[in-house]
């Protein structure tokens, strides 16, 4: 029996439009999210949060809170003194602040009480003696040599990470250019705002083992951190991720309340649940970094890029989080869309006294993508070229290597561009619509899974187990978390395809460290690709076992059997067949039916520090055309229509892919026009509520035309690539370009609020340049870059799975 996961024809369930297998459970309320869980004797946990952006903690007095009837325990930083962080290089955060607070909203103490009211009341009885320190709220403040150091004592620059890399000879590239252009850009920070507020329930069993049910995207990383902070062997901790109600990156870091709930459960011996309030979600954050960018690019007169120098400055907030990776990501993927023969990247992340930034959908790449796309539009103008043509002239080739050692395999970028340009009628519209209406265009690429895990190890990035019971029931075990993106359905579809069953036939056990093998988590768009390949491996091994049993019964060699429609049949002779259940019985007579599948990404890292960020077994490509209607008098913008083509490789379930594309467009519209995680000078969030933080509603959501480009990727499961993040990327610069087309205002900053747009329009009326965007970026001395030889020999080898 053979399974060829890249076969393009003859698929039974892969590629069919079907609802998620858990759709009804999620719709009817049957799905139990972390906050729905409850246990006998459960206590309610709440956290006391800092009211200072920056302060030393002189002392914390919990005695009055402890004396309040109904309070079972109060803990402070002294009870959880071990620092942690999701990245091994950034172990800089404590669940409860120990001697210093670094943002308004940072947890300082936690209580467990019999109910929420008592817990709230107890928080008011905890007295914290603070010695306020100056708040540091911008990149400029952070870099001020006479300012305070947020981590450490004394003065200096609050640099968390500075990188400078040069690939190829950038100076020579600029010297060879006919046009060298520089632009500056700014991208405001914003937050994920998942519908489900994070919640964690922790309970110590009678056997002394700790179980933590948490709304997390990465149970494995939480498991590791809890073992470290609680000083328990991993084997004594079980982490379970119940169905998660949206993540977008908000639930990939280890969040303080997860540790606090676990510690309180250990201290009290009773189950403790902490659910964040909506305000607390804005403090918990880990969202999009505010980034200031400067870019210089050389072009030949016919528009070919000769060199690029890109500089990004990230306002990181108080802690490391994923920040080192975020910093590299702001420089890594520029080369995945355009052939850039020489490239220099300088990236800086500073600490400020605000909630920590981290990964949000597109992690570190929407900001530079915005900058690069807008910069290319500027260059196209100056070169007198059509923006689409400029992209096509520089488009990367499939199966090539970039100057920064990224391996490009399948690449549907040209097809994406052609499809959206023609479907939208872009060329007939650009420059031709009535004043106030405009169109914009942009392209992008994104990872299908980060090439390396976040901590160094040589174990598989994903494992899937499959077990079959004697009646034919199939149970699939995967560590991946379904955060609403439908990963469980996708894995079920992949396994069902190989076994000739229906996805709904399978029992899926996911995201439970006691029961499921490790998957690194639902981040970096890795699950379909990596867990999907592990599922193919496990299912193929199982099919082989079943085929051997069935072959014996049918008297044919196992290679001649096919799995289809619940039957195991002889190829070409469907009358000679066994039902799946009969085949399983035959195979079970030969031993246990249980298999494991694994996925390792190929070795891809280049010969330099930081080369682990940006590599991926495959890149998805997207292109978008956006049409806007604006009000030239009031500066209001409405995104009317979006055409988006996404190179998915293969849509395992087109409904889910379309859902991801549409969700990405929705989120991009918010980031382009209204969303902003901003702070007042006291360091407090401007409006930590869903009324004040402006997420688009359905009324702001445009008409979306999704076009899927399906050219199977040689290493993807059935050829699939990612869909969860990439489609967000081109939409933001395309909205900005459309506003420019509509009004002639230069847009180098998002969000494009009516305030900003009207200010620019009025400047235009006064004869000044109508611009939304910064005049410069903060200066920072990066020093000499690490020089890296570009790869020799361009074609990329592909690992055939």
């Amino acid at each position: 029996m053979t399974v060829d996961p890249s076969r393009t024809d003859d698929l039974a369930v892969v590629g069919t439009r079907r609802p998620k297998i858990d759709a009804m459970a999620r719709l009817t309320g049957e799905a139990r999210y972390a906050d729905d869980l409850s246990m006998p004797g459960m206590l309610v946990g709440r956290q006391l949060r800092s009211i200072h952006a920056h302060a030393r903690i002189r002392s914390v007095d919990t005695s009055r809170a402890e004396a309040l009837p109904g309070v079972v325990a109060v803990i402070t930083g002294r009870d959880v003194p071990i620092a942690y962080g999701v990245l091994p290089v950034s172990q800089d955060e404590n669940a409860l602040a120990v001697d210093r607070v670094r943002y308004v909203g940072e947890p300082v103490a936690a209580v467990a009480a019999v109910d929420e009211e008592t817990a709230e009341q107890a928080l008011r009885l905890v007295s914290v003696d603070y010695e306020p320190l100056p708040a540091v709220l911008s990149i400029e403040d952070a870099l001020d040599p006479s300012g305070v150091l947020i981590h450490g004592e004394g003065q200096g620059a609050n640099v968390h990470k500075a990188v400078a890399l040069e690939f190829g000879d950038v100076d020579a590239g600029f010297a060879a250019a006919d046009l060298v252009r520089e632009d500056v850009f700014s991208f405001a920070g914003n937050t994920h705002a998942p519908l489900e507020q994070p919640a964690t329930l922790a309970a110590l069993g009678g056997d002394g083992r700790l179980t933590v049910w948490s709304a997390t995207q990465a149970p494995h990383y939480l498991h590791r951190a809890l073992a470290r902070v609680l000083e328990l062997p991993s084997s004594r901790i079980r982490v379970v991720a119940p169905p998660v109600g949206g993540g977008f990156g908000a639930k990939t870091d280890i969040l303080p309340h997860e540790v606090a709930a676990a510690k309180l459960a250990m201290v009290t011996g009773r189950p403790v649940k902490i659910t964040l309030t909506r305000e607390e979600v804005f403090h918990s954050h880990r969202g999009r970094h505010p980034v200031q960018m400067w870019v210089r690019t050389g072009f030949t007169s016919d528009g070919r890029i000769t060199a690029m120098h890109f500089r990004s400055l990230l306002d990181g907030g108080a802690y490391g989080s994923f920040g080192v990776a975020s910093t590299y990501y702001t420089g890594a993927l520029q080369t995945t869309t355009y052939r850039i023969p020489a490239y220099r990247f300088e990236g800086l992340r500073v600490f400020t006294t605000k909630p920590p930034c981290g990964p949000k959908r597109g992690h570190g790449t929407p900001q530079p993508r915005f900058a690069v796309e807008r910069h290319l539009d500027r260059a196209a103008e100056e070169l007198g070229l059509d923006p689409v043509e400029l992209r096509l002239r520089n488009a990367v080739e499939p199966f090539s290597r970039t100057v920064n050692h990224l391996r490009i395999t399948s690449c549907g970028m040209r097809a994406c561009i052609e499809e959206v340009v023609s479907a939208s009628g872009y060329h007939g519209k650009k420059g031709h619509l009535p004043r106030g209406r405009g169109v914009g265009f942009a392209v992008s690429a994104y990872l299908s899974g980060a090439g390396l895990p976040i901590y160094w190890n040589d174990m598989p990035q994903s494992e899937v187990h499959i077990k079959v019971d004697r009646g034919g029931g199939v149970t699939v075990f995967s560590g991946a978390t379904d955060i609403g993106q439908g990963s469980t359905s996708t894995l079920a579809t992949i396994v069902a395809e190989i076994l000739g069953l229906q996805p709904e036939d399978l029992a899926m056990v996911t995201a439970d460290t006691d029961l499921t093998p490790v998957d690194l988590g639902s981040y970096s768009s890795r699950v379909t690709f990596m867990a999907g390949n592990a599922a193919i491996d496990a299912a193929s091994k199982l099919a082989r076992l079943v085929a051997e049993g069935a072959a014996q019964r049918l008297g044919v060699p196992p290679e001649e059997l096919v799995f289809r429609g619940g039957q195991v049949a002889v190829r070409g002779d469907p009358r000679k067949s066994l039902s799946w259940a009969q085949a399983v019985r035959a195979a079970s007579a030969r031993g246990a039916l249980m298999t494991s599948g694994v996925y390792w990404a190929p070795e891809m890292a280049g010969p330099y520090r930081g080369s682990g960020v940006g590599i991926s077994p495959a890149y998805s490509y997207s292109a978008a055309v956006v049409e806007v209607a604006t009000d030239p008098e009031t500066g209001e913008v409405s995104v009317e229509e979006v055409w988006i083509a996404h190179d998915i490789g293969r849509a395992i379930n087109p409904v889910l892919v379309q859902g991801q594309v549409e969700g990405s467009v929705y989120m991009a519209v918010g980031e382009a026009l209204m969303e902003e995680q901003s702070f007042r000078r006291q360091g407090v969030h401007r409006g930590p509520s869903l009324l004040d933080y402006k997420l688009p509603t359905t009324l702001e959501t445009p008409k979306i035309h999704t076009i899927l480009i399906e050219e199977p990727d040689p290493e993807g499961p059935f050829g699939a690539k990612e869909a969860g993040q990439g489609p967000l990327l081109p939409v933001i610069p395309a909205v900005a370009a459309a506003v420019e087309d509509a009004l002639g205002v230069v847009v180098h900053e998002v969000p494009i609020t009516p305030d900003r747009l009207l200010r620019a329009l009025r400047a235009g009326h006064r004869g000044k340049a109508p611009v939304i965007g910064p005049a410069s970026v903060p200066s920072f001395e990066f020093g000499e870059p690490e020089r890296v030889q570009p790869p020799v020999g361009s074609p990329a080898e592909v690992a055939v799975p």
Partner: protein
Amino acid sequence: MMRLPPFARLAPRTLAEAVEMLADQGPGAAVVAGGTDLYPNMKRRQVEHHALVDLRAVEGMRGIREEPGGGISIGATTRLSHLAGSSAVPRALAHAASVIASPQIRNMGTVGGNLCLDTRCSWYNEPEDWRTAVGFCLKAAGDVCRVAPAKSHCWAVASSDLPPVAIALGASVRAVGPGGERTFPVADLYRDDGIDHLALLPGEIVAELLVPPVDGLRVTYRKIRRRGSIDFPELGVAASVRLAPEGICEAATIVLGSVASAPVRCREAEDLLAGRPLTPEVIEEAAAAAAHPAKPQDNTDLSHVYRKWVIPIHVSRALQSLS
């Protein structure tokens, strides 16, 4: 958001009983109708009440009736969704109701609650922790205004959508209190003081909104907000004109919402319109003048500068739609 603090809830069946209960409970008690404004404010600990008199079960206080002498009475506990869908009321009033908050909130929120809505400020409508971090302000427990610290005045914003259009329609309210009942123009319900913004007498309850017959009056309401739903107005423009047959404006009323602690009448602009035809030039002139009395502060989502800039544009568009 925190949970509601404990309070006593009283449920009178008649308006007289409600007035009596409110008086009995003394200062610190209040009425509640839909609770869509009051409860979130209590959860954020902006206000505290030991007792709430819930008007929802009061008989005869809900519904829209035609008055015997012409005009319409809208009971104070009439739901916004009911008003929004009513064909008995002037179109502009139904439209104003239809753009308040969101469908769910309109199903709970009432006309009386909207007329009596607390003023809002981006330094005030925040959770208690937030205000502890920033420092409290004049309107609640503090001694300084965070928006304009130099003056000891509160600039919290009158942010409800019905009052401007009610004023433009020439509507009145009937209020009932311990000292009896009185009927007065809607404009007189408000004081330009962010803290003490209602001119109700102690213990008074708004019983109904009385809208006179439209009788040829042309009325419109424009709401400027960030999103097509949920958001409070950043600016509200209500305008009404009475045109003589030859197109001359006999009388005009222009009222701005969300630019002060009370709805703002634009008398200069109104005077500019009186006796003149609504030509584009006349409209532009009046629209420019309409911005004069408005002094928006930096305490809503969009900047005060922006809000000031766009007043003439929206007044002009409102008047154009009436011409």
